[in-house]
């Protein structure tokens, strides 16, 4: 069986859905960050696959920008978790429930 471009797009879609569902179901902020990473990297696969299919470099170039953005997001996210952990021992999303209405 030949692996065509559609397989990569399918892989990307499945990864994206796993990330999205994981983010909605898991309660640990760190795991939620991982899910966001999974979603972004799923899109990267799409970009590369589509760029190859279209024979166009801009799809591949987009991946670099996305990687930078993903790194920046992790920096901010981890900083937030550290700041929260300094103030209290456990950091799960359920513990954070001051705000509701």
């Amino acid at each position, binding site marked *: 069986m030949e692996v065509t471009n559609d397989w990569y797009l399918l892989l990307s879609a499945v990864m*994206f859905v796993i990330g*999205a569902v994981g983010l909605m179901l898991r309660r640990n902020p760190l795991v939620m960050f991982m899910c*966001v990473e999974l979603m972004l990297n799923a*899109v990267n696969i799409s970009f590369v696959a589509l760029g190859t299919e279209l024979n166009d470099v801009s799809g591949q170039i987009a991946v670099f*920008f996305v990687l930078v953005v993903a790194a*920046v997001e992790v920096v901010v*996210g981890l900083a*937030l978790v550290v700041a929260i952990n300094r103030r209290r021992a456990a950091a799960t999303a359920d513990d954070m429930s001051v*705000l509701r209405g």
Partner: protein
Amino acid sequence: MHLVFAQVAPNVVAPRYSWAGLSPLIILATGALLLIMFRSVISRLPEKIERYATVALGPLTVAVAWLVAGLVGDDFLFPSIRANLGAFGAVATGVLLLGVAALLVRVLRVGFDAMFTAGTALVAFVAIVVLWNDYWRPSGPVLAIGDQFSFDGFSLVMSAVIVLAVVLCALLFDEYLRREGIAGPEMFVLMMLSAAGGLVMAGAGDLIVLFLALETLSIAIYVMTALHLSRNESLEAGLKYFILGAFSSAFLLYGIALVYGATGSMSLAEISTYMSSVVFLEDAMLLAGLAMLLVGLGFKVAAVPFHGWTPDVYQGAPTPVVAFMASVVKAAAFAAIVRVFVVTFADYRADWQPAIFGLAVLTLLVGSVLAIVQRDAKRMLAYSSISHAGFILVGVQAATSRGTAAVVFYVAAYAFMVIGSFGVLTVVSGRGDRRTSLDDLNGLATHRPALALALTVFLLAQAGVPLTSGFVAKFAIIGAAVDARSFWLAIVAMVAAVVSAFLYLRIVLSVYLGSATDAEPVEPVHPAAGLAIGVALALTVVFGVFPSPIADLTGDAVPQLLGAITRS
């Protein structure tokens, strides 16, 4: 073995760019970098030197603005000013302005960081005005970098709103940060960087640039939300905003990838050209891509059903941050929505209009109905901002030039209303942002009559009472909807306006007729915060009483397809 780049290189053409077009962006980014560099070397100046340095910043702002107007514009001074005053008059005006600026800073008792930020944003505003007068008026869109980023009238007006919001928020932040004991340059630096992202977003001509600009805008705001490290609410709001924001940008990115796959390009101009040359029937990939783009941008403007983060974040974030978030993020995100959907996918409107229709109806109804049951003023304003987003979506749905003009007017009017409202709340809520319940507003008029009056005007404007900017904005939106024959949407919008009017009037009544619960000593309003609220108030009233100059301005600000123009 050849390197990949070696094969690609012959096709790579260096982009055209213009310093004039980049100037507002350069000013904001340079301002942010200078401030953080200066403050990381010298964290604390002796008090006396800081005071003199701050006062010197006022005239410096005027001087730099004068210089920027000269470098960016064709002439050293504004041509119109020079023509009216003559050379001597212009110099005299300059000297007078320097004196007034120094005096103003002295009277405002504003800190160095806030003054620096306000000055930088004012200079950026001058650059934007020059771009409008000397570049866009005579010769159309101003190129900044190739296809990727340029200014047309639409993005110039949106950018002007964004930088003015930075000025007002800087004035609000000054006293707030000192009151909360978190004084420092971080908030101001992040605010300028975020605004720079907003500027790029308003003028992005390429989907990946749009994504990067959105992230620059958002990531700075996530940090600003969480920056009040000693309040659990602030940290919680920051984390929630961050996770949901990252989630939504992943959707936006997937949407970009799918649109790229379906059309073969990420440049909006090329996408539009491609779409007009090919007859699409139902391309699943393109439709899915558009839906994902709408989800991603819908999160940012807090459209229902993507509004989940808004109440929590608005309630938890430091109040001036909310003022910034509500004005700047909405302006930038709506600019992006208009640019992508109304301009680029104009021929495809039969497919996206129903989606925006549904979002607008849900957003209007959910926002205005849920606002009524809130007990917290910031939470209530969060839901009311959701319902305002619904109004703006009605203008987007019209997909006409009248609709986009209404969107621009609404965004501008709403920005100042919301900065004013949260400005009043910043002052009223006291140390630690504790007194934000609606009950705390009871009897405000007895001990703070001026603030109560300002709050009344802002709330009436949000309700859409005549002689305020809110009325003109809502009128323009509903007019555009009727013009585009979206009668049902216009009716829903009017019902939502009536429902939320009830809410605002109830608060106004309690401000004047309620009795104050406790008698905390009333501190006088800090002059800088007072100025910010006053300016927002003045703009709200002026937009309402004399709408025609502003309406002409927004009517001229028709969004264009940027790449196609800059390349020719």
